[in-house]
C-alpha cells in the first residue's frame, strides 16, 4: 500500500531554567514529572496506532524545552515506541534538540544508537556576558566540548541555534559568534533575529523601560552580513533564518514550510493532521491526566479549507528561499496563483519585495526584511 508521508513532533516541556527570551511551552523545576510524562508520550503514540498504518514517517523532531535534560533512556524508549507504532522510513531524518550543559558523551552515544541522526544544539552566542544576559546556563566552551563529543559519538549532521539583534550586542560580537561556530563546521545553522515576546523576562523589561531594543539598522546589518559570511563558508541560505551545507537542509522544518502534515505529541504540541490544525493542552499535568484517560487533549481544532491551505502554502512557502513553484501551486490547488492574487503579486513586485524567476515566486533580498508585509497580502 502507498502510504502518505508525514512528520512526528515530540515535545519535551522541561528545562533547567527559563531563558529570558523564551515563550515556548517549557518549565524549569518540573523534573519530577519526567518519568510520568514519557509514559504519557508512549501512550499517546499508542493512541494513534490505528491511524498510523495509513502513514509513513519521513522525519521526527524531538523538541523542547530541553529534551537532553531527561535521562537518555527516556529518549531511547520513546524512539522504540515510535518504531513500534509507526512505520518510520529508512532514511528518515530524526532530530533532537539539546542544550550544552545538559549533554555528555554517553547521552550522545545513546541518542545515536537509538536511531537519532541529527543533533540540534542551542548555542545562541559565543560571549559569556551575552549568554548570561539571555539567561543561558552554559558557556561557549561547554558547547565546543559537547560538539566534539557529538562528532565522536558519530553525529554527522549537527545544527547550532544562534540569536542576533540582542540588546547592546555589537556587530563585532555577532561576527565573532559566527566565526567561532563556523570554525567547528556544523552542517546547519539557524540564526534568529531576537523577537521580544510578551510574558518573558525580556518582555517585562521592555514594558518597564529597562530594556532598549537594538536599532533595526544594526539588526538588519547583522542579518545581511550573516547571509554573506555564511555563503562564503559554503552554507546555503535556504529559509529566512536557516542555513545549511548542501544536502543538509532540515527536512523536518521543510515539512512545515511545504504544508505537509505532521502529528505533534506531548503537552502543547501542534499538529496538522488529516486536514485539521490543533494543539494539545499546554499544561503538563492536564496532558498526563487526559492521556491517562485514553484521550488526546486536543484544543483549537481548526479545519484547514482550501482557502486556508492556499494562504498557508504561499506564506510558508515564501519563507523558503527557493520560493513557490507556479506549476506546483497549479498542480496542488488546480488554480492559477495569478487569478487569485494577481493584484497583490503585481503590487509586491513593484515594491521590489517579491520576484518571479524561472517559474518560481520568491522574496527579494529586500523582501526578507519585510516578509510580513508580503505575507499579509495573502492572508
Amino acid at each position, binding site marked *: 500500500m502507498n502510504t502518505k508521508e508525514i512528520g512526528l513532533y515530540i515535545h519535551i516541556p522541561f528545562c533547567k531554567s527559563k531563558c529570558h527570551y523564551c515563550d515556548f511551552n517549557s518549565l524549569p523545576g518540573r523534573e519530577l514529572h519526567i518519568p510520568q510524562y514519557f509514559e504519557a508520550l508512549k501512550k499517546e503514540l499508542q493512541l494513534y496506532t490505528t491511524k498510523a498504518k495509513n502513514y509513513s514517517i519521513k522525519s521526527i523532531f524531538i523538541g523542547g524545552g530541553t529534551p537532553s535534560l531527561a535521562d537518555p533512556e527516556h529518549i531511547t524508549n520513546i524512539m522504540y515506541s515510535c518504531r513500534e507504532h509507526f512505520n518510520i522510513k529508512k532514511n528518515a531524518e530524526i532530530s533532537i534538540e539539546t542544550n550544552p550543559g545538559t549533554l555528555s558523551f554517553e547521552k550522545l552515544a545513546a541518542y545515536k544508537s537509538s536511531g537519532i541522526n541529527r543533533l540540534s544544539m542551542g548555542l545562541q552566542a559565543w560571549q559569556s556576558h551575552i549568554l548570561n544576559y539571555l539567561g543561558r546556563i552554559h558557556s561557549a566552551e561547554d558547547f565546543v566540548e559537547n560538539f566534539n563529543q557529538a562528532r565522536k559519538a558519530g553525529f554527522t549532521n549537527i545544527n547550532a541555534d544562534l540569536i542576533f539583534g540582542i540588546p547592546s550586542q555589537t556587530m563585532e560580537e555577532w561576527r565573532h559568534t559566527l566565526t567561532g561556530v563556523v570554525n567547528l563546521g556544523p552542517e546547519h545553522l539557524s540564526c534568529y533575529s531576537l523577537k521580544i515576546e510578551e510574558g518573558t523576562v525580556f518582555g517585562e523589561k521592555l514594558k518597564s523601560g529597562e530594556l532598549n531594543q537594538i536599532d533595526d539598522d544594526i539588526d538588519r546589518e547583522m542579518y545581511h552580513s550573516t547571509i554573506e559570511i555564511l555563503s562564503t563558508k559554503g552554507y546555503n541560505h535556504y529559509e529566512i*533564518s536557516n542555513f545549511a551545507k548542501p544536502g543538509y537542509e532540515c527536512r523536518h522544518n521543510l515539512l512545515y514550510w511545504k504544508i505537509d502534515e505532521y502529528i505533534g505529541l506531548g503537552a502543547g504540541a501542534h499538529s496538522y493532521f488529516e486536514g485539521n490544525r490543533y494543539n494539545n493542552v499546554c499544561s503538563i499535568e492536564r496532558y498526563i491526566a487526559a492521556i491517562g484517560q485514553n484521550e488526546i487533549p486536543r484544543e483549537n481544532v481548526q479545519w484547514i479549507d482550501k482557502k486556508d491551505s492556499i494562504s498557508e502554502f504561499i506564506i510558508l512557502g515564501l519563507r523558503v528561499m527557493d520560493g513557490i513553484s507556479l506549476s506546483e501551486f497549479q498542480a496542488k490547488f488546480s488554480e492559477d496563483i495569478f487569478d487569485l492574487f494577481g493584484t497583490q503579486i503585481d503590487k509586491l513586485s513593484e515594491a521590489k519585495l517579491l520576484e518571479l524567476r524561472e517559474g518560481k515566486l520568491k522574496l527579494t533580498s529586500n523582501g*526578507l526584511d519585510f516578509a510580513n508585509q508580503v505575507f499579509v497580502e495573502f492572508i
Partner: protein
Amino acid sequence: MASERQKRIRNFCIIAHIDHGKSTLADRLLEKTGVLTEREMEDQVLDNMDIERERGITIKAQAVRMVYKAADGEEYVFNLIDTPGHVDFNYEVSRSLAACEGAVLVVDAAQGIEAQTLANVYLALEHNLEIMPVINKIDLPSAQPEVVKKEIEDVIGLDAGDAPLISAKNGINIEDVLANAVLKVPCPAGDEDAPLRALIFDSYYDSYKGVIVYIRVKEGKVKVGDSIKMMYTGKEFTVTEIGYMRPGTHFPTGELLAGEVGYIAASIKNVKDTRVGDTITLSDNPAKEPLPGYKKVNSMVFCGIYPADGSKYGDLRDALEKLQLNDAALSFEPESSVALGFGFRCGFLGLLHMEIIQERLEREYNLDLVTTAPSVIYKIIKTDGEVFDIDNPTNLPPVAEIERMEEPIVKATIMVPTEYVGNIMDLSQDRRGVYKDMKYIDEGRVMLTYEMPLNEIIYDFFDALKSRTKGYASFDYELLGYKESDLVKLDIVLNGDIVDALSFIVHREKAYTRGRRIAEKLKETIHKQQFEIPIQACIGGKIIARETVKAYRKDVLAKCYGGDITRKKKLLEKQKEGKKRMRQVGTVEIPQEAFMSVLKLD
C-alpha cells in the same frame, strides 16, 4: 386680561450656568408637588439622554406640568420648562423662554455668577420674564450666599434680597421656590376666543406617534381633530392627540387653551416641518400674524465625519438621519475625501453641539468615526467680484483668484478668578483676541470681554482655557459678524501628496506655529513604513514646517517554531486588520489616530 382659569397657571423655566443645579432643582420641584414620589425618582428626571446626565447638561428642552397647592389653599398649575443651558442652543433657549412668563435664576452659592448665568439672564430679560433669583448649594462649606446675593444685585441689577436660600440636593427650602413662583411669576394672559396662535418651543420624533410638538398656546384654543397650520413652513396637519406632559409620559386632555403648555401629535413625519419658533394656527380660522421671533437656525461650525471603516458609510448616513429627526439644527451632506473616502460634511450650532453629535454617533449607534478639523464659514470675495461661502478648506479657490477673505468674529465673555487674568490675556492674545473690556464681579473675579475670530475658538480653546485656569474659567460667545482677515490655507503633504482631510484655513501669522505642531504630532502618530516619509506643512507651494518619519528596517517573524502555524497566522491577521484601518494617501498609510491627533494641539 387673564381669565380666572389663567390666574391659576404659572409658566416658568429655570436658568443657570452648567452645574449650578438646574436639573436637581427641577427634580425637587416635581417631588414636592407630588408628580413623583421620592421612590419613583431617578435623579434628574428631565435629562433623558445618557449624555445629558453624564455631562450635567440639558440638550433638549423638556416641559412638565405639576399642580401646587399654595398656602392660601388654592391649587396652581405649574408648567416647568427645562431649557438647554448652553450657548450653542441659544435660539432654542430663547424659544423656551418665550413660552414662559417667569424664570427661576439658579446661582451656585459657592461659584457665584458665571458666563452662562449672565447670557441666560440677558436672554430672559429680552423676553420680559420676571426673574426670581435662587441661591443654591447653601449647604456647601464654601457657600457664600451673601456675597452671591450682592453679585446678583451689582452685576445683574436684580433685587436678590428675598431670594430663597436652598439646597436642591438636600431638599432644603424648596417650598420657598414654589411659594415665590405663585407670588412673583405673572399668570399668563391671552384671549381663548381669538384665532389660535401657539408657539413651538421644541419637538422630537416618536416612532409611534410621529413628531411630538411642544407648544405654548398664546391665544385661542386647539383640540383633537383640528386642522392646524404651521405659519412659517405652511405645512398642515390634523391633530390626533393633545395634552400635557408628565415625566416620561404624556397625559392626553383633548384640548389646550390660551395660557397652557402642552404637546400635540398630528402624524407629522419630519421634525423639519415643526421648526422651533414657528407658530401653529388653525387652518380654517388662521391668525393674521405669526408670533414674533422666529428664525431659521444656521450652523456655525462644520466638520467632516467619516466612518473609520469605509463599509459603514450607509450606517453613518442612517444614524445621522435618525439624529436629525430630533435635531433640526444638525445639517449634513455627503462629501468625499481622497484620504478618508466617503463621509459627510456636518454643520452644528457650535462646539458643544458638535461634540454631542459625535459622541451620540459613537455611543448610541456604535460607530467608529474619523473627524476632520472643525471649520467655520468663510466668505470668499473673488477677483471677479463673485462672493461665496465655504465651510470646507478643500473648496478654497486658488490664491490668485481670491481678492480677500472674511471670517466670523465672536464676542467672547470669560469669567475668571483675578489670579488667572494674566493667563487669560495671554491666551486670548495668542488666539488673536482683541481686548474690549474688563469688569470686576467682586474682589475675586473679573469678566473679560474679547472680540475673537471664531476659528480660534473651535480648535481647543476650551481645553486651553481650562488648563490655564485650573478649570475655574467660564466662557461664552456670541456671533458678532464677519471681518476681513489675512487667511491662508495650510496643507499637509505626506511624501509628496496633499492629505485633503488635514487641510485647514488659518491666519497667516498663526500658520507657522500650527503647521509645526501638526507636523510634530503626525510624526508621533504615523507608523514607520518601508521608506522615509517626509511630513511637510505648506502654504501654497511654500514649505513652512518639516518632519520626517524614519523608514523602518524590518518586519519579519524570524522564527516559525514547532509547527505552530496558527499563531503565526493570527499575528499576520492582526497586522492585516490594523492595515485595513489605515487610510492610504498616495504611498503613505495614515492611522486614523493621526487625523484625530491634530485636533488637540495645546
